[in-house]
Each structure stands twice: as C-alpha cells, then as structure tokens.
C-alpha cells in the first residue's frame, strides 16, 4: 500500500504543534533502498519547528535484517544522547495513529554530511585538523552507553563478522583471489577477544554531521548499531572507501590515526592499539567489497532493478586495490 507521506506530515504537524499547526515545508531529502528521509517544518503553538522524518519504505524483517528497527534506533539515539553522545534529539516516535508506518521524528541539525565536502571544501580547512580527535572523543559516550533493557541488538565479534562476510562471499559464487587472501590473512591475525560494548556500527565520514565552526555536530544513521569490539567503529571510519579521494589522511580523509586514538583515550575510552584498528579497517574494506557483491546480486536476482546496483558491483575492485596495499603493509 502506497503511503501518502505528505498527508502524514500534515497530521504530524497538528499532533506535534497543536491544533491549527500547518506545514511550512516538506521535502524528501534522500532515498536509500529501504529508508526515506524527509525534512519538514511547521508553525505551532510553541513556535516554528524544523524536523526530520526518518521512515522505512519497505517492511522490516527482524529475522533477516542486519539493521535494527527504527523504534530501537530512536531508543538508542535517546539513550546515547542522555549519556552525553552527540546524537540528534528524538522529537517523536511514530505510532499507528500517524499512518506513516515505521518512522520517527528528530530535530533537524545544521551542518554538512557530504564526505567530499568535509575532506576538500575550504570551509572546513580551519576545523579539519581537529576532526579526527573529535571523532575519537564522540565515540566514548556511545561506547559507554548501557543499551536500554528490552532492545534486541545483534552481538558480533571479529570472528563473527569475518564468518558472516565469508558466508556471503562464498554464496555469491564470485571468485576473487584478493578477497580470498584478505580473508585468509585476517583469520590468521585475529585480535584478542575484548569485552563487547555498544557500537554505532556505521561510524564513517558521510554519516556524521559536521559544522565548520564546532566540528562534530551529530552522529547520524544508527541502523547498524550492535554489540561488539570498540575498534570496529574506529576501523570503519578509517576504511579508504570513506576517505573521499584523500587516502593520505587515514581517518575519514580528514585526519590521522594518532589523533583518533588520542581523542578516544583522553575522553576516558579504554586505549586501543593501532594494529587493532588496522585489523578492523582491513576487515572494513573486505566488508565493503562483499557488500558491493551483494548489491550486484540483488540486481542479478531481480530483487532490485536500479542501474545503480550492478555499477556498485564494479566497486569491488576499489576494495581490492586497497586490500593489496594493506596486505603488503601488514597490520
């Protein structure tokens, strides 16, 4: 059933802003395959409000989904925010009365999320040298948050992640010697087990709202949150596919490893060794390579039709070009 989002937003304006509140703006910002983001605003009893609606456009299957439900996502944003994390403010979690399906509303945060702007736009030249340290700092209250009782979160360590991506790779039927060698190498260099904690799960340049004056404004896109190794969040933001043309700056294309690690430790995080981050970074490239294969398969198998999918399949070779260098360098 097609949902009329605009009509739903008008109802939300009245519900949140009081009787007579009307929409002053509404527009779709971006579309992932299964998630929609809308910016909207209204003039209510308490004054004007600028908000973001995040809603799932295809039904959620908790059995097969890698992501958490939007209600869980909202609960995690609130819990980490209460613990001092730079997370958006949740304004409302939608229910049946809203007629918008699975969705929640958050307060709009100003800033920039486009990765290439963060790495290259002169507006960020002044703040850029601080960003890696800030990224280390902002991870600490996320990692220190005790997930609210009753939430279902997946638990996965290095072995679990490696096994999961191996299964996906084997099932794809692809034969890629560089990916094979990366799997073999990582299996032989597993980090020591560590106390598992709450992770953002998709902590990378592109999912962080940056402000040219203050730096990190908010950490967004919490759908892959899970319980695991804290170094996973650090390795992912160091994965070259998210450095947006600046491989010479290992953290997100804007900063240095030492600053990320120092920021984390200075904010009270348990110190993490660089080799551990490098393990997860390499696993990050492998993860993205296997994900790209999966996106191609969803097209081949007729699940999605967009021309975007087979082209993403051709991005496997970017991860191979990164992996051969990482294999040469070692952890």
């Amino acid at each position, binding site marked *: 059933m097609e949902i009329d989002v605009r009509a739903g937003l008008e109802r939300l304006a009245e519900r949140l802003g009081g009787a007579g509140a009307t929409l002053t703006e509404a527009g779709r910002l971006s*579309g992932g395959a299964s998630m929609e983001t809308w910016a909207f605003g209204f003039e209510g009893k308490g004054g004007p409000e600028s908000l973001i609606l995040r809603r799932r456009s295809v039904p959620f299957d908790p059995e097969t989904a890698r992501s958490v439900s939007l209600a869980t996502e909202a609960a995690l944003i609130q819990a980490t925010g209460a613990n001092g994390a730079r997370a958006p403010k949740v304004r409302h979690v939608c229910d049946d009365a809203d007629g918008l399906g699975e969705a929640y509303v958050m307060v709009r945060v100003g800033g920039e999320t486009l990765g290439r702007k963060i790495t290259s736009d002169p507006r960020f030249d002044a703040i850029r040298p601080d960003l890696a340290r800030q990224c280390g700092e902002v991870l600490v209250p996320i990692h220190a948050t005790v997930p609210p009782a009753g939430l279902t979160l997946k638990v996965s360590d290095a072995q679990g992640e490696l096994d999961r991506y191996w299964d996906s790779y084997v099932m794809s039927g692809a*034969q*890629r*010697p*560089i990916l*094979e*060698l990366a799997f*073999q*190498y990582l299996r032989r260099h597993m980090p020591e087990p560590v106390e598992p904690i709450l992770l953002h799960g998709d902590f990378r340049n592109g999912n962080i709202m940056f402000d040219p004056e203050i730096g990190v404004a908010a950490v967004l896109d919490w759908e892959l949150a899970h319980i695991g190794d804290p170094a996973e969040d650090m390795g992912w933001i160091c994965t*070259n596919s998210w450095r947006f*043309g*600046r*491989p*010479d*700056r290992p953290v997100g294309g804007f900063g240095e490893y030492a600053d990320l690690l120092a920021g984390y430790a200075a904010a009270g995080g348990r110190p993490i060794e660089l080799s551990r981050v490098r393990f997860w970074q390499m696993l990050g*490239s492998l993860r993205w390579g296997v994900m790209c294969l999966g996106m191609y398969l969803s097209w081949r198998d007729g699940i999605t039709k*967009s*021309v*975007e999918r*087979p*082209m993403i399949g*051709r*991005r496997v*070779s*970017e991860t*191979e*070009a*990164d*992996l*051969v*260098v*990482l*294999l*040469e*360098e070692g952890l």
Partner: protein
Amino acid sequence: MITHPKTEELAESVRLWIDEIRPTLDPRNAFLARVAANAMATIARELTQGPAAEAAAVAGMAGVLGHEGGFADLNAELCERIRSGELTRETPGLLAALTVMARDQIAIDQPSYRPEGTPAPR
C-alpha cells in the same frame, strides 16, 4: 570487428547523449542517468583496456601457479589454493601479481579512485 564505428565508440556516443539530457531530468533520474553514463564509460574502457589487462592477469597467475591456462581456470585455481592455505601473503610473486591485477581492474572500473597508499594531491 568493424571499425566504423568501433563498439567503444558506440558506447561513448550513448554516454555523451545521456550527459546531454541529464539536466532535463528530475533529481532521482538525473542521478541514475549519471550512473548510466558511468556504466557506458566503463564499458568503453573495458573494450579498449580489457584485453591487455586480461593478458597481464593470465601471465601473472601462470607465473604464480607454475603452468599455463585460460583466465577462468587460472583464476579459479588461484582462489582454491589461497583458500586451502597453500598460497599466502608470503608466497613469492603472489602479492605482486595480485597488485597488477587490482591496478588494471580499477583503471577500468573507476579510474578516478585513489587507492590506499596514494600520496596527497598536489
């Protein structure tokens, strides 16, 4: 193969046409059109650079495996012998061969990509 036009020229002409009509499209279709234009460019590069890349890959894999063969067979055997643990990062010549293969493939798929280890742009 006929040469007037060559297949890669057909692909290039479609790419140029897509770029021409892109400004007339709504944002979603403009984005997809850009992806489609990139796909045509990849096809053109594969047609022109693919044969040399495949020949280099075959030579590299044959060197590591110690015998001749076609691309698909050598590639499958290489994967199998890495998977079994027989070939490793330390195997002489393996990483060098894989590095050539990766470099040639990214030059076809995404020549603007700057892999790990690329120095800062000047």
